[in-house]
């Protein structure tokens, strides 16, 4: 063991040096406190034996300085003293000395006192090393958990589905949670989304989450092979089968899992879901702006073997948004210990309803980070956003597109594109009046894009797509300019006192639906829907 000796009396120093070296220690000996302090800082001494009274720096000061420094390991300090009064011992211990040796010292006493010190230093070293082992093991568990999460717990959101857009996000916390999600795409445009959360933390929770997820996949293939060709097993049948498979084991392991299994059927405009005690899914209706919370009445998986899982249905329309999330989101806390909360989440979604799923969940994440003032969350944050496609996956009967430079001189060309599409490509065509109105709305919207989104720059592009369905014509304009901010629009002055401000009003009055949004590629879009043979089209302007 490396030992530092600080002793100004030559005989005493030599004696100490000789004894300690003979006992196998590595010894450095100096004759005053200042030198000792210098040497101490340079080398890693585990035991310091210092005389009390020394020139330049005394033993008390030396020990005080040693204690004030931060070390990786403990340093055992023995004070040599010719004093043995009680108050001296108190002063020495207050400075940080562990033990005392009275001069002239006895060889045997030195040996046993040294051995005691050695034991303390060794014990402390062993403790430190097992703490480090533990920390390494914990770190490894986190890494394993993260790997389980990425590879086994989280499915990949499907892309390019005709009827729905999906995006998912997981932000892992310092601990491992059992959050999981998966997606199953079926041939008839149906999409199944399963999101869940195993209660508990660590590798066991992650493994059980992975197990449930794979049980669903197995249940799906099992039931599909049992049913008639082409028929899909109902969500409640799937949940019941998984429940039969796992609940007994879960009860035995004293784990349970909340989850929601939802099937989106865009052509039929409805979602069937089984809610097993999961956080309530938020349904934002695009047309009316209303919010509904989807919740069933079933208990989590792994609670009761007798539970009978039942599905619930809810209708939806084109453009509706569904938001699934783990409680790590709503229970994110700020410095004052307040939760982010369901209410704030709902308000947030309402305010950002025009964003497409990918942009939306990123913004949700940013909002939670902002709220909690921290990038590292206590629980995993998981969310899945599902946006029903504007046309519910319906195929248009006619489609056309054009791209024009962002130059007002091209407006007549844009209008001609709309007229041609509505009058010549469609049979029967859109009514004359309906065509006039759609043409006007598209011209206004395009001119807004060029003048405001592009600030009059004529070297950019505007893309137009036209789609016709049995009951409506949809024109969409996309651009890479600034997003449109409806809140800055002034109401029109019908008394003729102001010349501007009519554009947005005209658009809203001329078509049945207007939607401003950002698409998945980051372009800002305006979408205009003109219904055929509706009251608005038939209405005679007075």
């Amino acid at each position, binding site marked *: 063991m490396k030992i530092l000796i600080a002793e100004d009396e030559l005989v005493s120093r030599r004696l100490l040096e000789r004894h300690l070296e003979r006992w196998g220690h590595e010894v450095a000996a100096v004759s005053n406190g200042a030198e000792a302090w210098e040497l101490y800082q340079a080398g890693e001494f585990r035991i310091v034996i210092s005389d009390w009274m020394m020139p330049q720096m005394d033993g008390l000061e030396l020990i005080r300085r040693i204690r004030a420094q931060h070390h990786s390991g403990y340093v055992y300090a023995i004070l040599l003293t010719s004093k043995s009064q009680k108050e001296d011992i108190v002063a020495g211990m207050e400075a940080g000395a562990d033990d005392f040796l009275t001069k002239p010292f006895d060889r045997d006493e030195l040996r046993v006192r040294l051995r005691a010190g050695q034991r303390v230093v060794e014990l402390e070293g062993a403790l430190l090393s097992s703490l480090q082992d533990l920390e390494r093991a914990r770190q490894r568990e986190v890494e394993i958990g993260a790997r389980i999460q990425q590879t086994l717990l989280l499915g990949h959101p499907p892309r390019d589905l005709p009827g729905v857009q999906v995006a998912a996000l997981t932000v892992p916390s310092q601990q491992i949670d059992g959050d999981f999600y998966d997606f199953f795409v079926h041939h008839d445009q149906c999409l199944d989304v399963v999101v869940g959360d195993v209660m508990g933390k660590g590798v066991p929770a992650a493994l059980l989450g992975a197990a449930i997820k794979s049980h669903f996949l197995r249940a799906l293939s099992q039931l599909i092979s049992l049913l008639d060709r082409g028929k899909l097993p109902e969500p409640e049948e799937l949940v019941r089968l998984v429940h039969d498979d796992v609940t007994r084991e879960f009860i035995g392991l004293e784990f349970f899992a909340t989850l929601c299994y939802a099937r989106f059927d865009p052509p039929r405009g409805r979602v069937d879901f089984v809610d097993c005690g999961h956080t309530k899914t938020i349904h934002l209706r695009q047309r009316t702006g209303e919010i509904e919370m989807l919740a069933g009445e079933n208990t989590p998986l792994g609670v009761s073997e007798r539970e009978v899982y039942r599905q619930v249905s809810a209708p939806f329309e084109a453009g509706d948004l569904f938001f699934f999330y783990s409680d790590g989101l709503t229970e994110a806390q700020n410095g004052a210990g307040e939760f982010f909360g369901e209410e704030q989440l709902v308000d947030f979604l309402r305010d950002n309803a025009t964003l497409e799923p990918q942009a939306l969940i990123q913004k949700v994440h940013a909002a939670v980070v902002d709220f909690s003032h921290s990038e590292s969350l206590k629980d995993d944050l998981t969310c899945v956003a599902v946006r029903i496609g504007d046309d519910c996956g319906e195929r248009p009967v006619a489609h056309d597109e054009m791209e024009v430079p962002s130059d007002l001189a091209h407006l*007549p060309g844009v209008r001609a594109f709309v007229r041609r599409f509505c009058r010549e490509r469609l049979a029967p065509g859109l009514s004359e009046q309906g065509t*006039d109105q759609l043409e*006007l709305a598209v011209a206004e919207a395009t*001119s807004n894009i060029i003048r405001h989104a592009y600030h009059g720059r004529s070297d950019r592009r505007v893309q137009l797509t036209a789609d016709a369905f049995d009951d409506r014509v949809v024109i969409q304009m996309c651009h890479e300019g600034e997003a449109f901010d409806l809140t800055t629009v002034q109401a029109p002055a019908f008394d003729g006192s102001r010349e501007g401000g*009519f554009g947005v009003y005209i658009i809203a009055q001329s078509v049945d639906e207007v939607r401003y949004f950002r698409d998945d590629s980051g372009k800002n879009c305006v979408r205009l829907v003109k219904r055929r043979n509706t009251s608005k089209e038939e209405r005679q302007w007075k």
Partner: protein
Amino acid sequence: MEMTTEKVGEVTVVELRGEQLDASNVMDFKRDIAPVLEANSRVVFDLSHLRFVDSSGLGAILSCLRRLNGAGGELKLCGLAKPVRALFELVRMHKIFDIYPTRDEAVRSLHA
């Protein structure tokens, strides 16, 4: 923007020759109409060639009305095609402007 002006007694009739008055040509219109409004106080816009007017075209015509009214003059409109008339009605400008079916009626109203 192409336009012809014709004096009928005290009244100046401006016939807009283009098919549209919209954001694509409204700047030209404003530039070309300014000297006409400067020199005349009783004006009729004959819009019968126009098939399309948008909000900026409407705003420009509105600005002509305010300018003339401000200088004690008058502006009448005539010959609005169906979609143009529909736009005026949509933003209730048919209540702000005096609109006549024909040029003669518009001119007569200013001579009365």
